[in-house]
């Protein structure tokens, strides 16, 4: 019996089904924890307690919210385009989840390694925009449509900056496979050489996931909630899960492209070699969680941008900076050979 079980587990591992189930469960478990962490961290930054009632220091708050949303009535507005209205949340959630299929969490733990992984992640992230646009369109509400248009324009503008910022690390690594890019950083992270690229990527990833200070699509004081204003219950929860899953995807990408993925810091120093003994998966998640923490930190610190400022930053500052970074990287690599 035990032997058969082992064979089954091995087979599932071989076909990546086991990894898929682990990664998906992990992502879906992280979402309630992240929402809790967000309220807790921002609460403490504003000198208040945050959630305290559900579980130890409110740690089960996210799960309680999830159960509440599951049991809520789902309203489809009378003027809505029903099939699209129902499809949009799924179309938003699925890309956010399957983007994880190429992220290498450790040298032995990833779902698959394809030779166009970076392009794959960018492409899948773009598909998520369809969910937003279709949700806004199908709702037949002015707020939803305005929010969706804003969100789509913002996401595609900053996607250019993300795409260009990633060219620098790609030139250094010489591969589009995320496993290959991580391995190329075994002797040192790309961060010190790609500091401009990292800054551009960091700002663009905040905007790409519609997070503060670029959370204009949700601007609660003017657009109520943006594209998902007409959504309720589990469908609303799907947009929420997608947003947090996207946050994890972009931070995981930053970890792989700039912060060395599963590699420990200070590889060049003899004294720091004991860090290699710590399993890579801890390094990966350590970096990723730190980046996620900075998301909350930024939200608690900066006021929201105005829409024209947002477009100006994306088109007139980040894109030229990213282009200059590409040229600089090219010149330096050509000189150093």
């Amino acid at each position: 019996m035990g032997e058969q079980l082992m064979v089954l587990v091995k087979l599932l591992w071989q076909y990546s089904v086991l990894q898929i189930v682990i990664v998906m469960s992990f992502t879906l478990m992280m979402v309630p924890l992240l929402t809790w962490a967000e309220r807790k961290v921002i609460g403490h930054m504003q000198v208040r307690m945050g959630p305290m009632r559900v579980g130890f220091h409110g740690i089960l708050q996210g799960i309680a919210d999830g159960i509440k949303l599951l049991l809520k009535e789902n309203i489809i507005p009378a003027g809505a385009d029903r099939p699209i209205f129902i499809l949009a949340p799924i179309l938003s959630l699925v890309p956010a989840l399957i983007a994880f299929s190429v992220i290498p969490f450790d040298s032995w733990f990833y779902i698959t390694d394809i030779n166009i992984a970076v392009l794959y992640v960018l492409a899948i992230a773009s598909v998520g925009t369809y969910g937003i646009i279709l949700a806004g369109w199908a709702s037949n509400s002015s707020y939803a449509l305005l929010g969706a248009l804003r969100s789509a324009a913002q996401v595609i503008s900053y996607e250019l900056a993300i795409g260009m910022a990633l060219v620098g690390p790609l030139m250094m690594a010489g591969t589009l496979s995320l496993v290959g890019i991580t391995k190329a950083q075994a002797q040192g992270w790309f961060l010190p050489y790609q500091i401009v690229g990292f800054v551009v990527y960091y700002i663009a990833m905040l905007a790409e996931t519609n997070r503060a200070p670029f959370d204009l699509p949700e601007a609660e004081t003017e657009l109520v909630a943006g594209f998902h204003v007409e959504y309720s219950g589990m469908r609303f929860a799907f947009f929420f899960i997608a947003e947090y899953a996207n946050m994890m995807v972009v931070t995981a990408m930053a970890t792989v492209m700039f912060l060395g993925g599963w590699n420990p810091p200070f590889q060049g120093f003899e004294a720091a070699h004991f860090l290699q003994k710590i399993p890579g998966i801890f390094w990966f998640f350590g970096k990723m969680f730190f980046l996620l923490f900075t998301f909350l930190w930024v939200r608690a610190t900066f006021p929201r941008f105005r829409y024209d400022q947002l477009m100006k930053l994306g088109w007139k500052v980040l894109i030229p900076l990213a282009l200059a970074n590409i040229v600089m990287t090219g010149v330096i690599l050509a000189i150093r050979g």
Partner: protein
Amino acid sequence: MPETTIPANYLPIIIFLVIAFLFGTFTLFFGYLLRPSSPNTDKLAAYECGNPPFMDSRSKVFVRYYLVAVMFVLFDLEVVFLYPWAVVYRKLGLFALGEMLLFILILLFGYAYAWRKGALEWD
């Protein structure tokens, strides 16, 4: 292994796609079994902060959004062209640098033109 047109590396992605889609539909169906449903006219009206909506919301939108979309298609294509170049850059050396400087120069020219014409303004 049967002959397929999709490389084996991509199979897990398709499996993941199916699992994620099933998760989405199953969760919605599960919620459908549990949740109450008692619609009425007011509940189903579009939300406009308490005012009854007086027109179809799918009307004219700001033309800038269209412009941004066009610009995005242009520049995103250029980024896609940069990727294969970036991957083989170290193998091609100086030749690749010259070629790319030329490409980026043309790109910059288009960018400067769009800027001059005010396509990047938002007022």
